[in-house]
């Protein structure tokens, strides 16, 4: 396949009356990329997708597809195909008619349509099911039909609005790899929307994390997880233990945060914030549960936390130990199951070590509410 068609959002604002649904979005999506928008419900993901597909025009700024400004072009004039949050298959048309609807619109003969629909049915592993009605398919099959219907229009950019959200967990995980597989095969740009971070991280080349209309960070999955740009991203993506405090001292890429009661903690400053944290600033420090480990040393250090166990859970591949720090705040530590019993009793005092490179210091900010 060729290079693929990229999508750019230039300074896009979308307002509904006084309400700002999307604020100053600047995004560059490369051709052939699997790009995800990740954010909590109501943060404006669907709104952005509708602006790309042409169902609404941005109040300000430009949407470019393949370098062309799309202002004034309707959904049918853009080289995009949208897969709706609820799929929106046509219930009264047979599966093959659904798939080939875009060809019907273009006036293709029934024979041509049937042929193309059968090819696509083969591709989505539903050969021979073309004469069923959508209601006679399972959730995952409907899902694939929706993808085939969108691909039949031969879009340059496929837009997917939480297409897996209605499926159960097992199927969702299966469909993730299938989607990725399809994307590699057809080689077109996928823009994927989800509030499920697992989905975003496993499938995407790049992820944009959104919070209430604002894009906080755009990066690949690993950077989003390991090197979050804001407190919101750190708390929204994956689990994280947070400590609040003030910057006590700062170097180029690390800082010591003076917390109220846990003492001084050392952390790496996330790359987007290096040079921005100043001594005395309100700051937050995040440590992932899996970055904590049990210390054999009980002297105090800026990479050691003293805490008391509240309870422990065994989850097969790992143990989760929940602790109460001196701050009274709950912490979670995850330890890989290596055969040792890690079911610590309530009340046991532990020292936890962490590597300052795996702890992230960020300017204080709004956290994702659970």
């Amino acid at each position, binding site marked *: 396949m060729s290079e693929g068609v990229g999508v750019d959002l230039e300074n896009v604002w979308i307002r509904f009356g006084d309400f700002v649904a999307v604020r100053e979005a600047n995004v560059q999506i490369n051709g052939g990329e699997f790009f995800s928008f990740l954010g909590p419900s109501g943060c404006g993901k669907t709104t952005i997708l509708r602006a790309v*597909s042409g169902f609404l025009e941005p109040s300000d700024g430009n949407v470019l597809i393949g370098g062309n400004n799309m202002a004034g072009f309707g959904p049918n004039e853009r080289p995009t195909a949208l897969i709706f949050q609820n799929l*929106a298959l046509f219930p009264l*048309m047979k599966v093959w008619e659904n798939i080939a609807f*875009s060809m019907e*619109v273009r006036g293709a003969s029934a024979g041509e349509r049937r042929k193309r629909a059968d090819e696509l049915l083969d591709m989505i592993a539903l050969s021979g099911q073309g004469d069923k009605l959508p209601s006679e398919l399972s959730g995952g099959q409907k899902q694939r039909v929706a993808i085939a219907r969108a691909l039949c229009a031969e879009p340059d950019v496929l837009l997917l609005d939480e297409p897996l959200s209605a499926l159960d967990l097992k199927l969702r995980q299966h469909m993730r790899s299938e989607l990725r597989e399809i994307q590699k095969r057809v080689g077109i740009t996928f823009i994927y929307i989800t509030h499920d971070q697992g989905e975003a991280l496993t499938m995407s080349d790049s992820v944009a994390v959104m919070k209430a209309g604002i894009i906080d960070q755009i990066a690949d999955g690993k950077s989003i997880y390991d090197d979050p740009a804001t407190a919101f991203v750190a708390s929204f993506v994956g689990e994280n233990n947070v400590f609040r405090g003030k910057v006590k001292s700062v170097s180029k890429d690390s800082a010591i945060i003076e917390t109220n009661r846990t003492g001084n903690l050392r952390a790496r400053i996330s790359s987007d914030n290096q040079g921005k944290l100043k001594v005395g600033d309100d700051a937050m420090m995040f440590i992932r549960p899996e970055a904590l480990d049990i210390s054999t040393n009980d002297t105090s250090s800026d990479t050691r936390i003293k805490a008391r166990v509240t309870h422990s859970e065994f989850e097969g591949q790992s143990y989760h130990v929940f602790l109460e720090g001196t701050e009274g705040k709950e912490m979670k530590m995850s330890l890989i199951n290596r055969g040792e019993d890690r079911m610590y009793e309530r009340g046991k005092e532990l020292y936890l070590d962490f590597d300052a490179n795996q702890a992230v210091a960020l300017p204080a900010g709004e956290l994702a509410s659970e």
Partner: protein
Amino acid sequence: MDAGFIKEFFKRNGVGMGWFLIIAVGFWVVVLIILPQISMFDFSFRNDLPPPEIGGPKDVYTLKNYQYLIFGADGNPDGYNKTDLAVFGKTLLAAAFVTILDLVLCYPIAYYLGQSTGGGMARLFVLLLIIPYWINEILRAFAFRIIFGDSGVINEMLMVIGIIDNPIDFVRENIALYAGLGYAYILLMIFPMYNVIESLDRNQIEAARDMGASWIKIHRRIVIPYAKPGISSGCTMVFMLSAGALAAPQILGGPSSLWFTQIIYQWFNQSVNWPQGSAFAAVLLVTCIIIVLGVMRLFNVNMGDIGK
């Protein structure tokens, strides 16, 4: 109906409510629908006798009332009862015309109401549609007569604008009648369609639009097939009621036009020949049912979908 269903029915509604439903619905169906129709059919096969002879030797079943509708009175030189059959045919055609008129007028309204997001506006619109029905049907018909009269609003306006010089006789041309009938059943056409269209997922329309479908295509392939049950129940009601209307043709019909129901009415009230009237009514009813079932079959609608 097996025992399990009956048990479930009482469990769901309670014993008291269950019996009330059974008795009320039973009474309604049997006493108010089935019995009158049966006795009307029975009447239609009898001779028109003075009361003392009823039950006497002359009170036997006969087909002569039906024969009259088709062949006219004995010794009719035409061979067929041209007047009554012509009225019959014209009534059915006119009812079909009113139905199509309402369908064409109401489909866009039902679509707009069903798919518009502005809940407030749509509700106001529905209210505006309902208000005229607070007025009695006969009064409404007279109001139409006034509006469409020689010096009515419509003629006056047309003359002021200068489109016409002399008033148009809307009543003689039956325009007033079609307008009145069409207007009377607008809601019966809108609501069933609105109900179905409202439940149509808006995303389906957007999906079709995304794939480049024109508005005509969207309606032909997505909205109309989906709304078919609503369309057919609306059409059924409007057709049946138009064909069976009496007050509007009486008041708004031109002098030359007679509605079949008016002939039935004459048999019952002026000629006091109930068996003859019953036969005419039976023919109208059965023909209407056959037409409706035939059209439903033609458009592939199931009886079960109609209730939706």
